[in-house]
């Protein structure tokens, strides 16, 4: 703000601080709960200072899950989640970048037809087509497999559409210059189009990583075997029923573990992410 108006500064800071509290306080409570014993949590009011059970709680969930609910080790779930959160963005991007390239730089028969077919799937997120998709995956014997977890989520048009829009904004003259330079279409793709898409790919990766990591409904349907649980599902499976029966300290520890990887990805990719959203190098 350019003007110096004390009450305005005061007001805006108040709003910001309230916002931070609204977002950060639940996270803090989650963390505190993950360091307490179950008895301490059940006391009313719950104490708001971290307890001494940090190591115990976390090593318990990482190696043996909860004692009353699911006993699957969270460390294994983290691996499953990671596989899912990596395969989905990488699979999505490699398919869509190449199909977007075809749509923008080649004239083939039924090109617009195919484009619109893909485009229409934008309107059909997983949740809408979940029953038929489940049937297909089940019939193919892909329940409780990594393929079953990831393939249906890889198929979506968002990334294809984004890359297409981006490629269309690359000047035609660049493709022509490459042609005069003697580059074949695929060489142009590798040497020019891909490097120019770096930032947009980074942004997409972050978004899709989080999307993959946070999947709930789909893994809930296709994983029945403990060894295939993802972390998010693991949390759900630890809850066994009424409020008091749940081991909240272990559940909260798992929740914290589930939050860390996306947060780390955002932190480390932030520079790239912001670049990809605001600036295109052309």
């Amino acid at each position, binding site marked *: 703000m350019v003007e110096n108006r004390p009450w305005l500064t005061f007001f805006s800071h108040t709003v910001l601080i309230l916002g931070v509290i609204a977002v950060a306080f639940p996270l803090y409570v989650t963390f505190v709960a993950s360091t307490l014993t179950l008895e301490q949590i059940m006391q009313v009011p719950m104490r708001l200072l971290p307890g001494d059970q940090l190591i115990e709680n976390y090593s318990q969930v990482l190696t043996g899950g909860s004692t009353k609910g699911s006993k699957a080790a969270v460390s294994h779930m983290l691996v499953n989640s990671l596989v899912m959160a990596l395969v989905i963005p990488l699979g999505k991007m490699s398919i869509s970048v190449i199909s977007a390239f075809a749509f923008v730089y080649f004239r083939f028969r039924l090109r617009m037809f195919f484009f619109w077919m893909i485009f229409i799937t934008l309107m059909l997120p997983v949740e809408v087509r979940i029953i038929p998709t489940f049937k297909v995956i089940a019939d193919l014997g892909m329940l409780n497999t990594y393929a079953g977890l990831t393939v249906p989520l890889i198929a979506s048009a968002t990334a294809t559409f984004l890359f297409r829009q981006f490629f269309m904004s690359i*000047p035609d*003259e*660049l493709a*022509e*210059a*490459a*042609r*005069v*330079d*003697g*580059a074949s279409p695929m*060489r142009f793709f590798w*040497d*020019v189009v891909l*490097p*120019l898409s*770096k930032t947009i790919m980074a942004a997409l990766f972050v978004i899709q990583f989080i999307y993959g990591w946070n999947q709930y409904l789909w893994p809930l349907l296709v994983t029945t075997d403990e060894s295939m649980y993802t972390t998010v599902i693991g949390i759900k499976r630890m809850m066994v029923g009424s409020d008091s029966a749940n081991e909240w300290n272990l559940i909260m520890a798992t929740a914290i573990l589930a939050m860390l990887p996306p947060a780390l990805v955002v932190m480390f990719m932030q520079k790239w992410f912001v670049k990809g959203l605001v600036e295109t*190098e*052309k």
Partner: protein
Amino acid sequence: MAAVSFRDVRKSYTPELQVIHGVSMDIKDGEFIVILGPSGCGKSTLLRMVAGLETITSGEIAIGDRVVNNLEPKDRDIAMVFQNYALYPHMTVYDNMAYGLRIRGLSKDDISVRVKKAADILELDKYLERRPRELSGGQRQRVAMGRAIVREPQVFLFDEPLSNLDAKLRVQMRAELQALHRRLGTTSLFVTHDQVEAMTLAQRMIVINAGRAEQIGAPLEIYANPATVFVASFIGSPPMNLVPRDGRLLGIRPEHLEPCAASDAMLTIDVDLIEPLGADILVYGHVGDRDSARVAARLPADALAQAGKLALRYDPANVHWFDPKSGLRST
């Protein structure tokens, strides 16, 4: 280096939309040819057909003794400089120049020698590690030229390469282009809509109007003897005056008009506008009523120019006659 020839070259984008209506021309080895015409007349289309970026609808284009109609751009041995430079934004200046050579499979040492040499000629040595967006417009322009030079092609193709530069830089680059051509002697086709650029650069030029070659020749020859009304009114600043006379069009250049006594007047105009330029004075006016022929005269700086009637005369030897219907010269 190589000669280039057009034989009745035509181009239609769609069956109804023909944009080049049969251009024939022989360009000698090492010649600097300017393709001049107003915007949208088909200059770029013509050049892009030579480059292989557009198909040739009918007719033939030959580079050297090869008809290139069905060759890919890379097999035509040409290099092109684009209006927006079309530099690869993520590559350094060095890589921009080296890219085509790498694809051609030249050795690292060869590439380095060629790029260094081009950078030397274009004074880009200091910028080899920079990226295009860290360069000024003029420097980018040079990189685009460097990319063409390193290839050592048979023919250079330029599509309005100077039009994105400011006026001063344009004049400077014009001079550099001339020097470059003297040094390398490569056959060059240069597209522009700017007649000053064409006059100063061309050894010969081809004036295009609506997809037809109106006239081909050396700049001064075209200036002195425009073949059509279009050429007469397109070349020269201000262009040739065209005044209806006895059912024909009388053409006279502004600098061939001089003030005289009213009794000697061969042309009398009502003055609309006087522009003193220092070296001379431009006087604009009209003959007869307001919306009839407009006339410009370039008078010596000391001429007495004022509003009202101005009597002018000319040497009949400097007059050109045109047929208003066909637009052709009628001696």
